[in-house]
């Protein structure tokens, strides 16, 4: 059994299908990147996985356990193993950086405040923001906020971390610092599933790349295959359209 097992997953908003039977298996410690044109369902797949958008059919297993997205307890158990970083950071504006990182471990996992704070400070140190602990999100740049958001997700000790276009909302000069942070995570045992338009980065960091289009997986393979000699015509066309950027 693989670490994350997705079988024939479908989802949609009000009758419009967004995911049309996605199947994918991910091993522990893998770095899997989802690419494809906008509207292909990449972000929706992440939202379904974390339980923000309900699936209409299909099955998801994490570590061999089936997830029942209709059951609150099942979703809560899932979220103890899986976390997400959003495109817009979604940091709580009413809390300091430290508060943002410690609140969930304290309130949802029953961690002692002192332990949560020590862990938060260590994580902040890792993302290079140790000195920002007592600032509010709106006092930070976008890149800094996104690094805090990553630290916040890591504070939950997830086995799987979903990264949803985490650099799309940033100024170009801020993208590097966030990518650097992600690089330090890869290969550290945590499973990463990311949606990104930074093709250089995807090619460099991924163990596997998944090409999606119109709510379905078109092709899966190592970066060398997807960017070098893609099998599907749709992948070729997509890579061709952005190859100028590579």
């Amino acid at each position: 059994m693989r670490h994350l097992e997705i079988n024939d997953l479908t989802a949609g908003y009000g009758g419009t299908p967004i995911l049309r039977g996605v199947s994918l298996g991910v091993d522990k410690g893998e770095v899997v990147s989802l690419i494809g044109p906008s509207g292909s369902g990449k972000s929706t797949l992440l939202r379904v996985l974390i339980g923000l958008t309900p699936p209409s059919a299909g099955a998801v297993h994490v570590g061999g356990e089936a997830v029942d997205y209709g059951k609150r307890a099942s979703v809560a158990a899932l979220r103890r193993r899986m976390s997400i970083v959003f495109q817009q950071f979604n940091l709580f504006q009413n809390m300091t950086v430290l508060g943002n990182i410690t609140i969930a471990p304290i309130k949802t996992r029953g961690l002692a405040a002192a332990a949560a704070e020590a862990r938060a400070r260590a994580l902040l140190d890792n993302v290079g923001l140790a000195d920002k602990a007592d600032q509010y999100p709106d006092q930070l740049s976008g890149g800094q906020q996104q690094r805090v958001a990553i630290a916040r997700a890591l504070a939950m000790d997830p086995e799987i971390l979903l990264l949803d276009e985490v650099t799309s909302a940033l100024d170009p000069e801020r993208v590097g610092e966030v990518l650097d942070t992600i690089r330090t995570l890869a290969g550290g045992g945590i499973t990463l599933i990311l949606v990104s338009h930074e093709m250089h980065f995807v090619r460099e960091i991924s163990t596997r790349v998944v090409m999606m289009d119109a709510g379905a997986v078109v092709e899966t393979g190592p970066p060398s295959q997807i960017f070098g000699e893609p099998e599907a015509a749709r992948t070729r066309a997509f890579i061709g359209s952005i190859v100028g950027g590579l």
Partner: protein
Amino acid sequence: MIERIVAEAPAFFSSANLGFVLAALGRTLFMTFVGCGLGFGIGLGLAVLRRTQAPMLAPARWLAMLWVETFRRIPFLVILIMVLFGVQPLVPEISLIGIATIAVTLVATAFLSEIIRAGLESVPRAQVEGAAAMNFSAWQSFWLVVLPQSWRVILPPAAAFMVMFIKDTSLASHLGVVELTFSGKILVNRGSSPVLGYGIVLLGYFILSWPLGRLARMLEVRLAPSRNQ
């Protein structure tokens, strides 16, 4: 007219009269603060209720909406009279000021719940999703994330509403609640010049309303630019 006022003034501004007006002013404040305070609490409940999505609560949501829409569309005077005749058969011992306070509560609930709802809705959905992804329960998400962020949107108009209602409570004089307006009426009926009797009442309202209005606006200025993304 002027001579009459000048002649009456010394007798009018007796300590007994001033004490009488002051006590009445206290009743005006009581109705406003207690009524709006209760209204805020119940309004918060209604606003939260209307955000829920459970199908089981649909009739309750519908009732909440009915309350809000109804009490914002009936004159306060009519509500006062209806509460007077509706409540006292059930609670005969209730005082007139109690009845007026219930009327204030009913109306304040309707208006304040709309203000609170707008405040809660001003918090971006992404904040709620962030909380959900971090395994917050609905209650934790509301209490720790949504409510703290909506105060700055809720408080200024809520304070302004309360200041406005100080003046609307003058209609309670029709029930015979000896509040500020009624105290003026009594003084005038006892033979005081209407200029003095109602003049002192106007002054009383201004002294209550103006500083509180300023305070509400200061609150707005202080809260408005804070911690925006």
